[in-house]
């Protein structure tokens, strides 16, 4: 593996892991609200959360670009007040990966929360536990395999993300290039050997992530 390939691989893994960690608290909160509460607008939120799963990633990326670009509401705010760009930087990659893997994390986590017997949570309350304590001591530990499985699935999705990333962050070698954008770029430029090596790395990484995710889910089922 060359130094450039190693840098590319570690950047992709690092930014994917960070995006998964960033969406974790929001994913847990959203999944819990969807699994355990009924509220007006719930079906709307369910739909919006799932949109990135079914929309073309390039379309999601275009929406993000409009929001995060220098002239967009969020990107413009950060540019004016903090003097930094989001689009076409590693921050853009991070946000694109986070948005694209969020639905997978929420779906797995929600399913895991729904499988926790609500009677256990109710009885914990009769024993004097607050909602927060019930969540941390009963709901989350019992759903932990599903949550970890969802995180790994989200991480795997982030590793392979292409469409949204190329729209929001483009391809800047050494700065915003990820495994998938680099494979595309290398193949387009006729660097087949480089592209196939990267392909091998991405298959190995994705295999490990999906296999681990399945293993966690299976452990939950067999308990």
């Amino acid at each position, binding site marked *: 593996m060359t130094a450039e390939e190693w840098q590319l691989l570690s950047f992709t893994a690092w930014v994917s892991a960070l995006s998964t960690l960033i969406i974790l608290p929001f994913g847990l909160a959203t999944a819990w609200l969807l699994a355990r509460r009924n509220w007006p607008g719930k079906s709307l939120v369910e739909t919006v959360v799932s949109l990135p799963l079914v929309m073309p990633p390039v379309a999601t990326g275009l929406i993000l670009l409009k929001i995060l670009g220098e002239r967009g509401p969020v990107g413009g705010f950060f540019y004016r007040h903090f003097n930094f760009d989001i689009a076409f930087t590693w921050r853009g990659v991070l946000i694109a990966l986070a948005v694209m893997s969020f639905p997978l994390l929420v779906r797995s986590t929600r399913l895991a929360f729904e499988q926790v017997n609500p009677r256990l949570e*109710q009885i914990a309350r009769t024993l004097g536990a607050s909602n927060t304590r019930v969540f941390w001591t009963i709901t989350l530990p019992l759903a932990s395999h599903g949550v970890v499985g969802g995180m790994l699935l989200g991480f795997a999705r982030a590793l392979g993300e292409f469409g949204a990333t190329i729209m929001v962050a483009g391809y800047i070698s050494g700065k915003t290039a990820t495994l998938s954008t680099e494979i595309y770029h290398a193949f387009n430029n006729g660097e087949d050997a480089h592209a196939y090596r990267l392909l091998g790395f991405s298959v190995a990484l994705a295999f490990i992530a999906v296999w681990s995710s399945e293993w966690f889910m299976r452990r939950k089922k067999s308990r």
Partner: protein
Amino acid sequence: MNLLLKNISLPLADFSLVVDVEIQNQSTAIFGPSGAGKTSLLDLIAGLRHPRSAFVQLGDRVLTNTATRTRVPTRHRQIGYVPQDLALFPHLSVEQNLLYGCKENRNSNSLFGYEHVTQVLEIGPLVSRRVTNLSGGEKQRVALARALLASPQILLLDEPLASLDTMLKSKIIPYLARIRDDFKIPMLYVTHDWAEVQALCAEALIMERGRIVRRESIL
């Protein structure tokens, strides 16, 4: 202690739970066939269900009064609830289950202290085990102990012996009698087995399709 249930109305699938009763006996059975609304009544007392209308008073504490929108949260009701499936926390050890709601200091020798409760229910040797490795009767005793350790003002027992065979039932009944006699807290005991009523309760409220149709004293 008095448990006052007035103007209770809770819509269920096929009928409504409609109850107006004052309970004064230390151990009262709610007796009736499956699906009569017995568990729903316990849930309502514990604050786990939202009634259309209800006035629930335990001693001098109003727990629910829909007329004034009073609703004491479940965690502040001081109610010990042992549901039919026991709801032991499967990821915790017996000891962690017992200490989950324990109000007293671990070394306290008080009535609802850890030492006394585990001694009365004879679960000392079980504390380091996982709840998933316990027998039916052991689980039953751990669930009872866990509820008692929260120092409740009333104990709600939902068919605690329903899943046990006759042999195990006869082993657990003396423990329940011991709880009734040693801890002196009021006990609402849901069952559809008249033999359990006779063994443990002073009075039975007969429930059918969400209503208390008869009240019987047990001699």
